[in-house]
C-alpha cells in the first residue's frame, strides 16, 4: 500500500480524499494554488505545497508543477479528484513515466474512453445503443447543418473530449447551430486543447441515468447500482438520487449489463461511471463514460456502505476489489443536493465572496461534504460548489423528508446559494412523484421558480 499520496485538487473533493487517506494511515501532501493557502484541506493535510498562482491553468492544470510537487515530496501516488487533471490522459502518462502511480485508469484506456467519438464507436461495436448523431467529429459548418437536417432539431453539440457539461450546446435551428458551432470551437480550444466536436440528437424529456462501476487490475469488475441525475440546469447536475425512481427493473438491469460490457471491452480499472439517457418508452442510449470519481459518488456510498475512494486507492496499489458483485447490498435511498454559490435571482451567476456565516446541517442520516467554514473566501477562479448535502432514508420519501429538514437548517450568509431553488424542487409535486426529466429545472426556472 502507498505510504504518501499527493492530492492534486481543491475544495470539497480534496478534503474527501484526505479523509479516506487518514483512515487508511496514508500521509497526504496537498498541492494547492496561492488562493487556497488557507483552505481547510491545507489545514488538515500532513504537508502542503503551493504549486502556482490562483489561475488554474498555472497551478491545478499545470502538469510540470504537479509532478514536481509530487517528486520533491516523495509521494507514491497522485489522486486527481474530479475536474482539473482527472481525465487528462497526458497527465496519467507523465505520472506513469515518472514512476508515480496515477489513481485512475491507465493512460491508454483513458485516452480511448475520453475521446467521446471513439467511446461511441466502441459502444456501437458492442451493440450498445448510442444516441443518433454524427459518425465522427464535424469539421465544417455545411457538414454540421446536413447532419442536423438528417437528425432533426433540436440537436446537441458536444466536445469530443471533456466533461462536466462544458463544450455542450443545444441548437433548435440552423442559425442557432451556426452560432453554437463557432462558440463551441472557441470554448473547446480554450479548455480542451483543440479537440473537435460532434453532433447528437437532443432527446427531450429524457432522463439521465448513470451506472457506477469499480474494476481492479486483476480483471474483476462490478457495478454499484445507478444514479438518477435528471435534475440539472444547463447540463450541470444539481440534485442526484439513487436508486432511480419509477424505472422498470428490466431497464436498470439492461443499463448495468451495458455498462459492464463497455468497461470490460475497454479493459477498465478504477472507479468509473457510464452515463445513459433513457426515454419514456424504455429506450436507452449510451452518452459517455467518465473515467474518474464523480461528484455524486456520495449517494452510492450511502446506500452501499462502500468507500469509493478507498477502493480507488486499493485498486491503484494493485490490490483486488474488497468484495464481489453478489456481496454488494444496496439499502434504502439517498439524495444529494449540490449547494452552489450562485445567484438564482441573477441567472444563476456564480458569486465569489466571503462566506460570513456557515452552519451545515447535521443529525440522523445526513452527510455533508464541504470545504466551507464561516469567514472563508470563495475565490472567483474555480467552480461554485460550496457543499454537498446528502440525505439517506429507508425509502425515497424518507430521504426527501430528511433532505427538507437538512436544507431548512442550513445557513449560508455572504454569498447567494441555490438552496432556495432546491427547497422548491423538493416540494414540487412532480419531483415527489418521481416524474422528472432533464427539462424539469429549466421549466421550473422559466416559470419564475427558485428566486428565493
Amino acid at each position, binding site marked *: 500500500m502507498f505510504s504518501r499520496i499527493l492530492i492534486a485538487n481543491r475544495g470539497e473533493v480534496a478534503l474527501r480524499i484526505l479523509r479516506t487517506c487518514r483512515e487508511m494511515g496514508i500521509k497526504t501532501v496537498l498541492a494547492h494554488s496561492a488562493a487556497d493557502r488557507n483552505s481547510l484541506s491545507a489545514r488538515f493535510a500532513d504537508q502542503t505545497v*503551493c504549486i502556482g498562482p490562483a489561475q488554474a491553468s498555472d497551478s491545478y492544470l499545470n502538469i510540470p508543477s504537479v509532478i514536481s510537487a509530487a517528486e*520533491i515530496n516523495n509521494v507514491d501516488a497522485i489522486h486527481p479528484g474530479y475536474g482539473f487533471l482527472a481525465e487528462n490522459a497526458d497527465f496519467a502518462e507523465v505520472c506513469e513515466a515518472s514512476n508515480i502511480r496515477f489513481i485512475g485508469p491507465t493512460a491508454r484506456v483513458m485516452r480511448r474512453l475520453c475521446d467521446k467519438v471513439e467511446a461511441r464507436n466502441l459502444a456501437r461495436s458492442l451493440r450498445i445503443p448510442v444516441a443518433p448523431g454524427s459518425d465522427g467529429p464535424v469539421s465544417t459548418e455545411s457538414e454540421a447543418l446536413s447532419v442536423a437536417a438528417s437528425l432533426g432539431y433540436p440537436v446537441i453539440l458536444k466536445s469530443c473530449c471533456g466533461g462536466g457539461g462544458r463544450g455542450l450546446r443545444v441548437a433548435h435551428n440552423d442559425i442557432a447551430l451556426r452560432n453554437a458551432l463557432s462558440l463551441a470551437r472557441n470554448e473547446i480550444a480554450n479548455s480542451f486543447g483543440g479537440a473537435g466536436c460532434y453532433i447528437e440528437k437532443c432527446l427531450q424529456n429524457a432522463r439521465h441515468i448513470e451506472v457506477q462501476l469499480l474494476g481492479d487490475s486483476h480483471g474483476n469488475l462490478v457495478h454499484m447500482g445507478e444514479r438518477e441525475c435528471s435534475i440539472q440546469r444547463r447540463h450541470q447536475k444539481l440534485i442526484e438520487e439513487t436508486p432511480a425512481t419509477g424505472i422498470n427493473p428490466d431497464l436498470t438491469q439492461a443499463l448495468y449489463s451495458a455498462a459492464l460490457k463497455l468497461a470490460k471491452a475497454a479493459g477498465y480499472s478504477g472507479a468509473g461511471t457510464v452515463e445513459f439517457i433513457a426515454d419514456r418508452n424504455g429506450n436507452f442510449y449510451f452518452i459517455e463514460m467518465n473515467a474518474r470519481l464523480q461528484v455524486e459518488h456520495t449517494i452510492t456510498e450511502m446506500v452501499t456502505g462502500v468507500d469509493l475512494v478507498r477502493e480507488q486507492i486499493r485498486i491503484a496499489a494493485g490490490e483486488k476489489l474488497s468484495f464481489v458483485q453478489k456481496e454488494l447490498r444496496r439499502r434504502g435511498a439517498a439524495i444529494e443536493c449540490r449547494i452552489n454559490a450562485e445567484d438564482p435571482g441573477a441567472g444563476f451567476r456564480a458569486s465569489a465572496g*466571503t462566506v460570513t456565516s456557515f452552519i451545515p446541517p447535521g443529525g440522523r442520516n445526513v452527510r455533508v461534504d464541504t470545504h466551507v467554514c464561516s469567514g472563508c*473566501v470563495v475565490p472567483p477562479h474555480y467552480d461554485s460548489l460550496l457543499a454537498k448535502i446528502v440525505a439517506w432514508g429507508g425509502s425515497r420519501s424518507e430521504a426527501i423528508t430528511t433532505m427538507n429538514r437538512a436544507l431548512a437548517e442550513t445557513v449560508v450568509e455572504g454569498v447567494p446559494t441555490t438552496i432556495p431553488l432546491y427547497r422548491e424542487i423538493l416540494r414540487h409535486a412532480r419531483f415527489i412523484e418521481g416524474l422528472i426529466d432533464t427539462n424539469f429545472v429549466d421549466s421550473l426556472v422559466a416559470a419564475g421558480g427558485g428566486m428565493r
Partner: protein
Amino acid sequence: MNDNATAAGGRARLLRKNAIMDPLDRVRQLIEIMKENDLVEIEVEEPDLKVRLKRAEAPAKPSEERGQPLQLPDAGGKRLLEGQELVEIASPMVGTFYRSSSPSGKPFVEEGSIVEPDTLVCIIEAMKVMNEIRAEVRGEVVRALADNASPVEFGQALFLVRPLPG
C-alpha cells in the same frame, strides 16, 4: 429599493431608517456609512434618490483584514518589507532549489553579492528541467533564505535584497 454597497472584499446591506429625508442629509448619512465601513464606492437607488459615491483614495485598512486571500506576487515577484527597504526574490515555481551549478560548486550569489536584474541567482529543478532564476532587481543580497537542494514552493521567498539605484 435596491441598496448595494461594495466594500474592498465584502458586501454590506444598507437599511434606510427614515423613508422621508432630505436628499442632502441622506448623502451625508451615506458618506458616514462609507467611512464607518471603509467602503470605496456606494451606489443607492431609492424611489426619490439615485446616487453613486466614490472615494478618491483607497481605505487605509489592508485587504487581508477582511479575510481576503493573501495576495502573492506574480512569478519572480518582489515585495517591499515593512520598515526595511528590502525586496524578496520569490520562487516562480515549485521544485528543488540549488544555489550552485554542481554539488561542490561555488554558490551563484552569496550574502553581500551585488546583483543586476539579469544575474543568475539560483536554479530550480522541476521535472528534470533546470530553470535558471534571475534576480530581476538591482541590489545587494542581504540574506539567502532557502537551503541548498531543498524543496521550494511557488511564491516562497528565496533571497532578501536591498535595492540599489539603477
